[in-house]
């Protein structure tokens, strides 16, 4: 359904997308994971025909999006990471407006809009002004908007960002329903455990490169025997980082909120060794805990300097 070949996007000397290759099968949900500024949004905008790449090719359902962008747009529903509202527009009018922008006949688009509002559970809000909706509702409306022309590929940029757990669960339920309807979905997020739950395949992007790509199970298998720990030190953060990087079992160190996230190989024995090294070198460790979760571990691993080949 979606094939991306050797995609490159440069802003001056900065390489935002670095020879990215990926493939998404029809009917799949593909999770696009990466830290902020990794190139997720840029890649998604390029696929959605909103940004010209420096080089490379994107094919959606057999259509080259750069050669035939207008034809490709019929196949693509794009939802950006920010929800823009027009003042003075009601929910139904909002959908009606985008329906008309896609050239759908008046009666048809009214009917589609009603159906979509039902799908995203906003039927009782049809006459409410868009700017009075809650964040979760707006996000669901935005999802309905990108479905108005019945696209086959949905590109959803961080659809669950900044939402409470209940709203996230609602979005997840809608995504599962869309998958059941046969839609192909490319979704980016940094909420990793959720991605594992709904995605068939995931790709992890870092500094414009897709460093890991495969099914969640595949990646999990590959990562068995790898652990991530979160360490808090009282002071001497820099010394702790350089000491950690010297250890053979450590594959990556990220500093975040006065804490260190460390990816390492091996089991509990190795973790004990690591802690012992830190303590014996007089690094004031106040907290040392193993990180739970699965994809987060992988994320930590692959966004370090080492590249993982599956």
């Amino acid at each position: 359904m979606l094939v991306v070949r050797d995609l490159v996007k440069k802003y001056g000397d900065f390489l935002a997308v670095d020879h990215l290759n990926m493939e998404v099968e029809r009917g799949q949900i593909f999770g696009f994971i990466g830290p902020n500024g990794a190139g997720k949004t840029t890649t998604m905008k390029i696929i959605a025909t909103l940004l010209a790449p420096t080089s490379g090719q994107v094919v959606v359902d057999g259509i080259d999006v750069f050669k035939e962008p207008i034809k490709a747009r019929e196949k693509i529903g794009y939802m950006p990471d920010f929800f823009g509202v027009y003042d003075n527009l009601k929910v139904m009018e909002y959908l009606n407006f985008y329906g008309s922008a896609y050239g759908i006949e008046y009666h048809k688009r009214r009917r589609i809009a009603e159906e979509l509002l039902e799908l995203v559970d906003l039927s009782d809000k049809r006459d409410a002004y868009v700017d009075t909706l809650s964040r979760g509702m707006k996000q669901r409306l935005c999802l309905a908007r990108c479905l108005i022309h019945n696209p086959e590929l949905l590109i959803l940029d961080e659809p669950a960002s900044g939402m409470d757990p209940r709203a996230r669960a609602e979005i997840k339920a809608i995504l599962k329903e869309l998958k059941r309807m046969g839609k192909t979905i490319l979704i980016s997020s940094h909420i990793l455990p959720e991605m594992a739950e709904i995605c068939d395949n995931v790709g992890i992007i870092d500094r414009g490169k897709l460093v890991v790509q495969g099914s969640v199970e595949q990646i999990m298998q590959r990562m068995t025997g790898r652990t991530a720990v979160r360490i808090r030190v009282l002071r001497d953060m820099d010394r702790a980082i350089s000491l950690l990087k010297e250890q053979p079992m450590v594959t990556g160190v990220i500093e975040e909120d006065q804490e260190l996230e460390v990816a390492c190989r091996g089991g509990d024995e190795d973790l004990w060794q690591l802690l012992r090294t830190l303590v014996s070198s007089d690094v004031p460790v106040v907290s040392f805990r193993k990180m739970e979760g699965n994809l987060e571990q992988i994320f930590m691993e692959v966004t370090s300097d080492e590249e993982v080949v599956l």
Partner: protein
Amino acid sequence: MKRWFYNPVLASSLKTRMRGWRTAAAVTAYLGVMLFIAYVFFKISFANEVMHYLSVSANRSVGLRVYMLLAVLQFALILLVTPAQTAGVISSEREMQTLDLLLCTKMSPFSIIIGKLLSSLAFILLLVISSIPLFSLVFLFGGIAPEDVAMLFLFYIITAFAVGSIGIFYSALFKRTVVSTVVSYVTIFFLGIVSIILGVYMMSLHYSQLPRPSDYYVPFVFYINPTIGLSDLLYRQAGVTAPNPYYGILALLFGVGWSSGSPQGWFQRLPLWVANSIVMSGIAVLLLCASAWIIKPYKRFRRRS
């Protein structure tokens, strides 16, 4: 065919803009100001004229003067209101991040631009049309024919179209609405005021050559100045055959004589306001095409590697 005329951006903007009390209040305030100024002017002039002459021609001259006042007033308001209406339409879409949503629909960048321009102009048009009854007052006195008012309104629409295109262009060019609004007003100031000084300077340079040229010379900046067009139109309607008053006033100020010789070629033979309208419309179309090109995601001469 129906689809061709239907612009979703225009349809949606018209609906939302007319909703609520704001537009009605703006039209009421606009007409209120115009009516008040016209009333005061009319009261003063009429009292003076009637007291002194008490004749039909006095009525006619009062009517003409009220007409001129209203025409200039309305024109100034168009020049002031149009940039405010248009200079934010694309940049605010960008700020709200809704431009991308529009661009990934089937609408072309040009139809988005046209929809935005027309919806802004629709408001100006509403102001202009709602002022027709006010203008009709001058018919009581005679001296001005309905065709004159129609021609004036046509010139208004062309001016609003041209000034609106400038606003849209800056709005597409600059990311922030504040910047595009300021630059639009600076441009209008340049077109309305600075271009006259520049034009007169060019004339003075032209005619100060030795031996003194005797050709018909209109500096090109006069063709892009809508106020020159308006004054030409109004003086024609008032039956004044003398050249444009700007030349006269500025000739006094700068010691420049107005164009001598007779017009050469079809373009120079056109009334100045018509030539002015043609040039402004041409520039407006170019600016609209440029705006559509700016917002287009794929540029034609995109670098390939």
